[in-house]
Protein backbone atom coordinates (compact mmCIF):
# COMPACT_ATOMS: atom_id res chain seq x y z
CA UNK A 1 0.00 0.00 0.00
CA UNK A 2 1.31 3.37 -0.95
CA UNK A 3 1.40 5.86 1.86
CA UNK A 4 2.48 9.44 1.65
CA UNK A 5 5.57 10.30 3.68
CA UNK A 6 3.65 12.97 5.62
CA UNK A 7 0.92 10.50 6.50
CA UNK A 8 3.54 8.24 8.05
CA UNK A 9 4.86 11.19 10.04
CA UNK A 10 1.54 12.09 11.63
CA UNK A 11 0.51 8.50 12.20
CA UNK A 12 3.74 7.94 14.12
CA UNK A 13 3.07 11.18 15.98
CA UNK A 14 -0.48 10.11 16.86
CA UNK A 15 0.38 6.60 17.96
CA UNK A 16 3.37 7.98 19.89
CA UNK A 17 1.11 10.41 21.77
CA UNK A 18 -1.36 7.60 22.55
CA UNK A 19 1.47 5.43 23.83
CA UNK A 20 2.87 8.24 26.01
CA UNK A 21 -0.53 9.00 27.59
CA UNK A 22 -1.33 5.32 28.24
CA UNK A 23 2.12 4.89 29.81
CA UNK A 24 1.49 7.89 32.06
CA UNK A 25 -1.80 6.36 33.24
CA UNK A 26 -0.18 2.95 33.74
CA UNK A 27 2.77 4.31 35.73
CA UNK A 28 0.42 6.47 37.82
CA UNK A 29 -1.91 3.56 38.64
CA UNK A 30 0.41 0.57 38.96
CA UNK A 31 3.78 2.06 39.94
CA UNK A 32 2.80 5.13 41.96
CA UNK A 33 -0.33 3.41 43.28
CA UNK A 34 -2.69 6.29 42.54
CA UNK A 35 -6.36 5.46 42.75
CA UNK A 36 -9.65 7.34 42.54
CA UNK A 37 -10.65 9.15 45.77
CA UNK A 38 -13.51 6.75 46.41
CA UNK A 39 -12.00 3.30 46.11
CA UNK A 40 -14.12 0.51 47.63
CA UNK A 41 -13.99 1.83 51.22
CA UNK A 42 -17.57 1.76 52.52
CA UNK A 43 -19.45 2.99 55.60
CA UNK A 44 -23.03 2.83 56.86
CA UNK A 45 -24.27 6.37 56.09
CA UNK A 46 -26.70 6.25 59.06
CA UNK A 47 -23.92 5.55 61.54
CA UNK A 48 -21.36 8.10 60.33
CA UNK A 49 -21.46 10.05 63.62
CA UNK A 50 -20.53 7.00 65.66
CA UNK A 51 -18.03 5.42 63.27
CA UNK A 52 -14.32 6.23 63.59
CA UNK A 53 -12.74 8.42 62.32
CA UNK A 54 -15.90 10.37 61.49
CA UNK A 55 -16.99 10.62 65.13
CA UNK A 56 -14.23 13.21 65.56
CA UNK A 57 -14.03 15.43 62.48
CA UNK A 58 -11.02 17.73 62.19
CA UNK A 59 -7.27 17.60 61.92
CA UNK A 60 -5.34 14.88 63.71
CA UNK A 61 -1.60 14.24 63.83
CA UNK A 62 -0.65 10.66 63.02
CA UNK A 63 2.61 8.77 63.45
CA UNK A 64 4.21 6.06 61.36
CA UNK A 65 2.26 6.71 58.19
CA UNK A 66 3.18 8.12 54.83
CA UNK A 67 1.33 11.33 55.74
CA UNK A 68 1.70 13.57 58.81
CA UNK A 69 -1.92 14.50 59.42
CA UNK A 70 -5.37 13.15 58.81
CA UNK A 71 -8.09 15.67 58.09
CA UNK A 72 -11.57 14.23 58.59
CA UNK A 73 -14.62 15.91 57.07
CA UNK A 74 -18.28 14.95 57.34
CA UNK A 75 -20.59 16.48 54.77
CA UNK A 76 -24.34 16.78 55.21
CA UNK A 77 -27.04 18.99 53.75
CA UNK A 78 -25.90 21.80 53.77
CA UNK A 79 -22.67 22.07 55.71
CA UNK A 80 -19.29 20.54 56.37
CA UNK A 81 -17.96 19.55 59.75
CA UNK A 82 -15.56 21.14 60.70
CA UNK A 83 -16.63 24.51 59.28
CA UNK A 84 -13.10 25.85 59.52
CA UNK A 85 -9.76 24.17 60.12
CA UNK A 86 -6.12 25.23 60.38
CA UNK A 87 -3.41 23.18 58.67
CA UNK A 88 0.33 23.79 59.09
CA UNK A 89 2.19 24.88 55.96
CA UNK A 90 3.95 22.08 54.10
CA UNK A 91 2.13 19.32 55.94
CA UNK A 92 1.35 16.13 54.08
CA UNK A 93 -2.32 15.56 54.81
CA UNK A 94 -4.69 12.74 54.06
CA UNK A 95 -8.17 14.16 53.64
CA UNK A 96 -10.83 11.61 54.58
CA UNK A 97 -14.44 12.51 53.94
CA UNK A 98 -17.89 11.05 53.54
CA UNK A 99 -21.50 12.13 53.27
CA UNK A 100 -24.31 11.50 55.76
CA UNK A 101 -27.21 11.98 53.36
CA UNK A 102 -27.00 12.75 49.65
CA UNK A 103 -24.15 13.10 47.21
CA UNK A 104 -21.93 16.11 47.87
CA UNK A 105 -18.82 17.56 46.30
CA UNK A 106 -15.60 18.46 48.05
CA UNK A 107 -13.37 20.91 46.27
CA UNK A 108 -10.71 23.01 47.94
CA UNK A 109 -10.47 25.86 45.45
CA UNK A 110 -6.91 26.57 44.33
CA UNK A 111 -5.60 23.13 45.33
CA UNK A 112 -5.63 19.69 43.74
CA UNK A 113 -8.21 18.46 46.27
CA UNK A 114 -11.41 17.78 44.36
CA UNK A 115 -13.56 14.74 44.94
CA UNK A 116 -17.11 13.47 45.12
CA UNK A 117 -18.62 12.39 48.43
CA UNK A 118 -21.16 9.62 48.08
CA UNK A 119 -23.32 8.33 50.94
CA UNK A 120 -22.00 4.91 51.93
CA UNK A 121 -18.53 5.48 50.54
CA UNK A 122 -15.39 7.00 52.02
CA UNK A 123 -13.40 9.36 49.80
CA UNK A 124 -9.72 9.92 50.50
CA UNK A 125 -6.99 12.00 48.95
CA UNK A 126 -3.42 12.71 50.05
CA UNK A 127 -2.11 16.20 49.41
CA UNK A 128 0.61 18.56 50.58
CA UNK A 129 -0.39 22.13 51.38
CA UNK A 130 2.51 24.01 49.78
CA UNK A 131 1.03 27.49 49.76
CA UNK A 132 -0.12 29.51 52.78
CA UNK A 133 -3.52 31.19 52.81
CA UNK A 134 -7.19 30.43 53.01
CA UNK A 135 -8.67 27.80 50.74
CA UNK A 136 -12.41 27.73 50.35
CA UNK A 137 -14.05 24.33 50.30
CA UNK A 138 -17.14 24.24 48.15
CA UNK A 139 -19.73 21.64 47.27
CA UNK A 140 -19.62 21.12 43.52
CA UNK A 141 -22.34 18.48 43.24
CA UNK A 142 -25.86 19.87 43.35
CA UNK A 143 -27.28 18.56 46.64
CA UNK A 144 -30.46 20.56 47.28
CA UNK A 145 -31.83 24.04 47.99
CA UNK A 146 -28.92 25.01 50.27
CA UNK A 147 -26.23 23.76 47.89
CA UNK A 148 -24.79 27.21 47.18
CA UNK A 149 -24.47 27.95 50.93
CA UNK A 150 -22.47 24.82 51.62
CA UNK A 151 -18.84 25.63 52.33
CA UNK A 152 -15.92 25.25 54.70
CA UNK A 153 -12.46 26.78 54.95
CA UNK A 154 -8.96 25.38 55.21
CA UNK A 155 -6.46 27.89 56.54
CA UNK A 156 -2.85 26.99 55.82
CA UNK A 157 -0.70 28.70 58.46
CA UNK A 158 3.07 28.84 59.02
Amino acid at each position, binding site marked *: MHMHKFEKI*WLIFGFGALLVFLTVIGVSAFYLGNQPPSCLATIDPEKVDTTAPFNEPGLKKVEGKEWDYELVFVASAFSYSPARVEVPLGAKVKVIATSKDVMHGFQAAGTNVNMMLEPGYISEVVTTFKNPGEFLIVCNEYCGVGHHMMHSMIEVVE
Partner: protein
Amino acid sequence: MAKTELNRKIDTETEVEDSTNLNGTLASVMILGAILIITWVGLYMLFLSR
Protein backbone atom coordinates in the same frame (compact mmCIF):
# COMPACT_ATOMS: atom_id res chain seq x y z
CA MET B 1 -26.36 33.24 -40.61
CA ALA B 2 -25.26 31.82 -37.34
CA LYS B 3 -22.13 29.77 -37.40
CA THR B 4 -22.05 26.31 -35.92
CA GLU B 5 -19.38 25.82 -33.35
CA LEU B 6 -18.68 22.25 -34.22
CA ASN B 7 -15.10 22.88 -35.24
CA ARG B 8 -14.18 25.38 -32.58
CA LYS B 9 -11.51 24.23 -30.24
CA ILE B 10 -12.56 24.74 -26.65
CA ASP B 11 -9.89 25.56 -24.15
CA THR B 12 -10.35 22.72 -21.64
CA GLU B 13 -7.19 23.21 -19.70
CA THR B 14 -7.95 24.16 -16.12
CA GLU B 15 -5.39 24.42 -13.42
CA VAL B 16 -5.56 21.40 -11.13
CA GLU B 17 -3.53 21.43 -7.97
CA ASP B 18 -1.36 18.42 -7.38
CA SER B 19 -3.49 16.19 -5.16
CA THR B 20 -0.43 14.58 -3.59
CA ASN B 21 0.67 17.87 -2.08
CA LEU B 22 -0.05 17.52 1.66
CA ASN B 23 2.05 20.39 3.01
CA GLY B 24 -0.96 22.25 4.36
CA THR B 25 -2.40 19.09 5.92
CA LEU B 26 0.92 18.33 7.60
CA ALA B 27 1.12 21.86 8.94
CA SER B 28 -2.42 21.79 10.36
CA VAL B 29 -1.94 18.34 11.91
CA MET B 30 1.28 19.47 13.57
CA ILE B 31 -0.33 22.71 14.82
CA LEU B 32 -3.16 20.68 16.37
CA GLY B 33 -0.64 18.29 17.93
CA ALA B 34 1.36 21.19 19.34
CA ILE B 35 -1.82 22.70 20.88
CA LEU B 36 -2.63 19.36 22.55
CA ILE B 37 0.89 18.96 23.94
CA ILE B 38 1.10 22.56 25.16
CA THR B 39 -2.30 22.23 26.89
CA TRP B 40 -1.31 18.94 28.52
CA VAL B 41 2.06 20.20 29.75
CA GLY B 42 0.46 23.43 30.98
CA LEU B 43 -2.16 21.59 33.02
CA TYR B 44 0.45 19.20 34.40
CA MET B 45 2.56 22.20 35.53
CA LEU B 46 -0.56 23.67 37.17
CA PHE B 47 -1.18 20.34 38.93
CA LEU B 48 2.40 20.24 40.24
CA SER B 49 2.38 23.84 41.45
CA ARG B 50 -0.83 23.63 43.52
